[in-house]
């Protein structure tokens, strides 16, 4: 069954609670890592689902480049067929980074942009770096996580979700 952002945040919270109540340092790290990953999965889920809402729009309302970005597909100039000379969305996958998606959603569908100098964005970038190092482990980088990191990941995810919801939907999210 597909899990939505609220369930994923609940999972993140559950792992944080485990980390916070366990006295064993190794277990704390295991639970904290899981909590951070679930919190970011929640944020990814929320962002991707919002992107998907716009990919279903009838043609002509968004440019091919916007459509391609939302669908995470490559946009190319067609060199044959009825669209020859026009940009069109292809079936080739092009994954976009989480921060790009957030920035695009806010900039395109609200009359505002993300304030990259804000404390929230700085906290988001820091937690995302931790998440990235967990999902792309390398022997030359040691990433240690703590319950404090897990708690921060939950807070940051919720606050970013809140930000995007307010900007795009003009609606406060209830967790």
């Amino acid at each position, binding site marked *: 069954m597909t899990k*939505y*952002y*609220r369930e994923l945040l609940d999972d993140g919270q559950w792992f944080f609670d485990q980390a916070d109540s366990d006295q064993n340092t190794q277990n704390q790290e295991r639970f904290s890592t899981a909590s951070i990953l679930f919190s970011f999965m929640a944020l990814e*889920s*929320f962002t991707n*689902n*919002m992107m*998907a*809402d*716009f*990919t*279903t*729009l*009838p043609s*002509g*309302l968004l440019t091919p480049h916007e459509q391609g970005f939302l669908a995470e597909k490559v946009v190319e100039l067609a060199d044959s067929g009825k669209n020859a000379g026009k940009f069109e969305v292809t079936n080739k996958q092009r994954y976009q980074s989480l921060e790009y998606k957030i920035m695009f959603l806010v900039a395109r*569908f609200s009359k505002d942009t993300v304030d990259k100098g804000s404390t929230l964005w700085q906290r988001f970038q820091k937690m995302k770096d931790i998440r990235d190092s967990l999902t792309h482990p390398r022997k030359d980088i040691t990433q240690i996580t703590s319950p404090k990191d897990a708690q921060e990941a939950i807070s940051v995810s919720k606050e970013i979700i809140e930000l995007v*919801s307010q900007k*795009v*939907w003009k*609606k406060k999210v*209830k*967790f």
Partner: protein
Amino acid sequence: MIIKTIFDQSSPLNTSVENAVNEFLSMVETLEASQDNKIIIHQDGVEKSYYIRCCLLGKTAAPLIDLNARLIPESPDSYRANRKLLVKNKTFLRMSQDAARGREFNDIIVEYNNGYTPESPLKVWGGQHRSRAIQLASEKEISRYHGFRVYFCLTKEQRSELALISNTNINVSNDLFDRALEETMVGPYLRHWCQRVGLLGPGEDFPDTKSNSERVTTQLARTFIVNFFLGKRRSAELSSEPLDKNVYEPYLCLSGVLDDQYSLIVSQNNKVWDDKALEESGKAFSALNKAQSESIKKSSINGKSFRTKAITLSVLPAWAYVAGLLQQHESRLKNHLSIPKATKGEPDPLNAREMSQYKHDKDLPTYRGLGTRSSMADRQRMAQVFLARSLDAEATFDKKLINKAVSTVIGLNVLSGGY
């Protein structure tokens, strides 16, 4: 014996009323008359209806009481206006026991009218359960004085108002109000139309409470009519191309009052009830409603909310709106009017289970699924679901179609700066 009647200081003299009161007093023995007291004729300040207050013995009142009061006395087609007697209700049983032990009731509201069933000229508008309890006590030869308000020479509007205000102190549903208002202010046309298209059975009336029935209420029937014409009007404003680039707003008629939109449509267009396209849509919807109900009844998920999925406050308006909207789009209309095939693994054409499980990120954690609420957002979503399905005769209401339709509504609303 001549009984003196006088009009109170707020009640203008009215000879017809005075004659009717005198006729009543000559036929019915009241406590006041037996004590040689004057009978005061009052006039209600709002609807200007005339009435008297008097006490009648149970044995006097019992045979004169008519519990099947009509809103339109001259029309034998006028259905019973009061709610159903709840003879097994604990409160009624207690009331009957009390009456048999000598309880005296007061402020029972009746209309003196011998224009139909003249043997029972006291038409009960308020206190039908008390009246029935008095009748039952009378059968046991228990007869006490009970207080009555007896109205005279009521107009159609006064009678309708009386029916409503007499029921405001008990738990009466808006559905009953709607049914009564429809009958007096518009006539039996809506009921006849619903019977013709199959939304009501032959001779069947709208339910007095939705919760006790699985058929369309007056509110829903009005909503169907209004949305069909709203959709049709919107369609005329659009060309074929941008049909799917809009968010549509199916309307939900107000309950408990005669809805303005509905009044406007039935008063401006006297051919509403003969409109062939409306009738075709009504029949198609009725068939969908039946198919939904029957398929769920035979399944392992046999629950009322699934059986009545078609007649929820968001599904019905959306369906009717889209039926109107597609009038100029022959092939899509044909698809819309056909009963969808059930989604693989599901028993019903509307896939009620999938809809009930549906939730968008934007929804509150308490959201109960698509097509369950009456909110505008839910009606918009359902309209888009039906519109999406009309593109393909073979399409079913599967998760993919539902997801896409709701996403489209949300995306379009964001682009337009709406909800």
